[in-house]
């Protein structure tokens, strides 16, 4: 994928100075902003947004952690401080619609901000793209994954937490991949091991790491690539594949990365 082309990434502050209001705010998230692997997902998404001329903006340096890991670690106070700060910024820009590439940000803003005064129409990027597809604004044709055997890992906070199993699968089907399901998928999908702030701590003693266990389930399907819809799942699965020494033959992609060279204008 060619990332060298210039991305157009307007900020809310920049647009406001010009007296403009974008249709949608792209919430990048901490992983999407700072994690080297996740930044590629961010860029792949922006590339599509640019390609089909979506009127969007980011908060940039005004964005801060949604507070998801703090809340799930038990620090309600820190969570609410983060939420209050973010809601103040979002409401200040009169944001109506938010799209995010991180299911954790998605879940928190969508479900936990309303009680604190933040009411927005929040969608995950796979839902956003699926809708553009339905509206005919996005056309997907072939691409390098056509005919390839792909298994999709459901992120807990998109799947079980919010009941979205179909949008990412719908996008993959449009790529004409051979979609194969793991033995635990959809509402019974197994966690990658990163949720509930586990990403930021060592696991408790056990006989295996959760991400290894999940990767084994993925590898059982004999995939040519693994698709995910969450930057944290992506990291966990990538590490799992490395642990199994399969990193050369099996790559872990975000659904949007797989789309990005199949998007047709």
């Amino acid at each position, binding site marked *: 994928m060619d*990332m060298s082309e210039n*991305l157009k990434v307007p*900020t809310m502050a920049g647009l406001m100075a010009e007296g403009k209001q974008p249709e949608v705010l792209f919430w990048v998230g901490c992983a*999407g*902003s*700072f*994690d080297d692997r996740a*930044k590629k997902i961010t*860029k792949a998404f922006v590339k599509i947004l640019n390609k089909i001329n979506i009127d969007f903006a980011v908060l*940039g*340096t005004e964005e*801060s*952690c949604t*507070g998801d*890991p*703090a*809340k*799930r*670690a*038990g*620090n*309600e*106070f*820190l969570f*609410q401080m*983060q939420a*209050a*700060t973010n809601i*103040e910024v979002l409401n200040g820009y009169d944001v109506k619609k938010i799209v995010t590439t991180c299911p954790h940000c998605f*879940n928190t803003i*969508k*479900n*936990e901000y309303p*009680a*604190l005064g933040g009411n927005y129409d929040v969608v995950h990027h796979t839902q956003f793209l699926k809708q553009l597809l339905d509206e005919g604004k996005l056309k997907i044709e072939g691409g390098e994954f056509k005919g390839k055997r792909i298994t999709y890992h459901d992120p*807990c*906070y998109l799947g*079980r*937490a*919010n009941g979205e199993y179909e949008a990412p699968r719908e996008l993959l089907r449009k790529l004409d991949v051979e979609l194969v399901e793991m033995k635990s998928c959809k509402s*019974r999908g*197994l*966690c990658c091991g990163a*949720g*509930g*702030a*586990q990403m*930021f*701590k*060592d*696991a*408790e*003693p*056990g*006989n*295996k*790491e*959760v991400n*290894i*266990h999940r990767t084994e389930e993925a590898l059982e399907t004999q995939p040519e690539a693994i698709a995910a819809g969450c930057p944290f799942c992506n990291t966990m699965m990538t590490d799992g594949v490395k642990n199994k020494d399969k990193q050369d033959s099996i790559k872990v992609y975000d659904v949007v990365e797989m789309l990005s060279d199949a998007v047709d204008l």
Partner: protein
Amino acid sequence: MMAYLPQILFIIALGFSIWFFTRNVKRLRRNILLGKNTDKSDQRPKRLKKMLRVALGQSKMVTRPIAGFLHVLVYVGFVIINIEVLEIIIDGVLGTHRIFSFLGPVYDVLIGSFEILALLVLISVILFWTRRNISKIKRFWSKEMTSWPKNDANNILYFEVVLMVLFLTMNATDYQLQLNNAAHYNQAGTFPISQFLLPMFDGLSNATLIVIERSAWWLHILGIFFFLNYLYYSKHLHILLAFPNVYYSRLNPQGQFSHNETVANEVKMMMDPEADPYAAPEEGEEDMPEKFGASDATDLNWFQLLSAYTCTECGRCTSECPANQTGKKLSPRKIMMDTRDRLEEIGENINKNGEFKPDDKQLLDDYISREELWACTTCNACVEACPVGIDPLSIIMDMRQYLVMEESAAPVELNNAMTNIENNAAPWPYNQQDRLNWVQEN
């Protein structure tokens, strides 16, 4: 007088059974209401629909087809055969015999279907026992499934076998007595199953048959009275509590964790430039909770406590738990069992002392270890798996909240992540000013 003796004995047994059951239901209610308040009075039509679908309709049981199907058989059998129990109770009180037999052909159909169901229950229960004790299905062999929980599960199965065998024996001898034209044994009912037991009673005198028939009748109904009162001490309470538990279970998306209004008010104050931090709280505003989160069973809300009594320890939650699958100590089922055990301990304490006397114990550490709590990935697999709407995750979260907000006892790496969030708005030590750098990087 002697003629009325069976009726008198029956009424005494019935009365005692109802009195004891009522006493335990009152204790159950009292214990559940030791929990914190939570408002579940909203969305009644939606709750009712969910209860009909999930509890009455067993919709989540059948996600595991074999266990689900067998369970539906036992469940339908249990519910339907209870119509027969009603007849037995009326007969017992009035000294009649098969009082519903005036229904004629309807009665024949009823008794016939009870018999078929009884056989299906018998078969299912034997298969359940085999699954539990011989095929060694993993979720029945976890650490928490030893001693009482293990015996309790088997006791119920043995009990069902005994009850069904007594029921069929009672019918078989009754049928034989009907064929013999014995006095009081009028022609009533069809016996599609128990007719095959007749050879066992071949050649017995009417007097002997009556003894067997009466014994089976009495043991069957006394068994049911016992079973009713066994419930309170057993995982089998789910046959009653599954209904209210599903009714009150969460309707919001599973990802929406509970909102904390106290903290919200605190934060609002801190964010409000007009607020006077030294101002005395207004009347009625000093409702700061004595603690954040939960360290004991009574810090949980009443729904969570109801759930603890509802849990039937099937272990579907634990078998879906990623932490448990990878050998960590966490088992969502154990979280529910521990909560019930601790709540029972508190209840017993109150029964003994009239009010709760501090016992130097709590749910945290004495029952549920920190290691268990920190192993959770909050993935909601346990919540999804529960056939009766229990949310073990909410208890884990409340206890984490206690650990972090009251004891500052998070694992070190988590504290680092939280410090980062506080200082630079991301869980990693990156500067917020660099959040847009990715645009320029290749």
